[in-house]
């Protein structure tokens, strides 16, 4: 259940990393794609659910690992996180969409459907980064 032990586990929940300015080419605000900028829009979330949805998966994982640690000891979350880390490395090249099949199977997402699978599917995204630039960025050469 999503709310199991919520209060006790969320004292150190994941901090918000901020919305960030929408930079386009040359580091300047991309007015055509993201509209006029304002400091308020960048600092505050505009919708009640925006923050909680952004961090939902991270917070869920934190709660579950916390519970697991309390029940079974430190080894349980450690082993699981090691497996998640290994599964996360099985990806295609940076500019292509990966299926995350191993990660989904480990997390149990392959047996449930939620709004993440229907709305805004990254596999159907209409924008693709330029391959050379994406690979350089990923390897830290940018």
């Amino acid at each position, binding site marked *: *259940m*999503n*709310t199991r032990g919520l209060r006790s586990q969320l004292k150190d929940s994941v901090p918000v990393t901020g919305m960030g300015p929408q*930079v*386009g*080419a*040359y*580091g300047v605000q991309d007015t055509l794609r*993201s*509209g006029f900028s304002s400091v308020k*829009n960048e600092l505050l*979330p*505009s*919708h*009640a*659910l*925006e923050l*909680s*949805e*952004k961090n*939902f998966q991270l917070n869920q994982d934190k709660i579950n690992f916390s519970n697991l640690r309390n029940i079974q000891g430190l080894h349980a979350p450690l082993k699981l996180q090691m497996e998640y880390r290994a599964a996360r490395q099985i990806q295609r090249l940076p*500019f292509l*969409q990966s299926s995350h099949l191993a990660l989904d199977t480990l997390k149990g997402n392959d*047996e*449930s*459907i*939620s*709004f*993440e*699978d*229907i*709305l*805004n*599917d*990254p596999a159907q*995204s209409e*924008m*693709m*980064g*330029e391959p050379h*630039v*994406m690979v350089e*960025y990923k390897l830290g050469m*940018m």
Partner: protein
Amino acid sequence: MALSNVVETPASGFNFENVCRNVALEGLLQGGQTKAPKPMKTGTTIAGVLCKNGVVLGADTRATSGEVVADKMCAKIHYISPNIYCCGAGTAADTEKTTDLLSSNLTIFSMNSGRNPRVVMAVNILQDMLFRYRGQIGASLILGGVDCTGNHLYKVGPYGSIDNVPYLAMGSGDLAALGILEDRFKANMEMEEAKELVRDAIHSGIMSDLGSGNNIDICVITKQGVDYIRPYQESEYKDKRQRRYKYRPGTTSILTEKIVPLELEVVQETVQRMDTA
């Protein structure tokens, strides 16, 4: 270095990019004559009753969009699994999508485990989903079903609250329907009596509430199977629109007929041989 070509993977799920724009648009439109279109609601009467051999669910069939009736034959009793059905009140799209998602999740579960899902499982999945979105998904649902543990009737509110009682009503006409249910409900009723009770409850909702109307649908779930009676009772005020405007030949009488032959003369003739080798 221009980083315009490094594109981050868009987060899947709900996208909040247009919220600021929508708020600004609302502000602009309020001053003017036009208003933003209202989402279609199923301002509704739905009711459910537990009886001796199963569960009876009932609903009206009107969907409204502001003050206009958007759909006169809306189906508000949604299929969840072969032994569970769900009536939905609130925003029509939200109830539709939420029950669809629930149905898909339960189908996956059935395929994995080889069993029919239990009603409590459906209720828990709904609760988690609706609480996660803090009531922004406007779906008030009445779930009824028969599983290996017996007959169950639950109500789930838009914020994820649940209620487990033998008779329920929800929607804008729920007070009227509850009046009838409170008056005549008895434990362990017979099937026919329960159907009549639900029909009367929905009928009183239709009579007393503007958001409910048109026909009454009834769904009876028992251990043997499901009987989805749509419509159980039709409204007296039928819509007599002629949907097809094709008339049979001879409807219009011919008074006179004049034939003018069109004479053509050959001006130029070219022959091109086709190679059929």
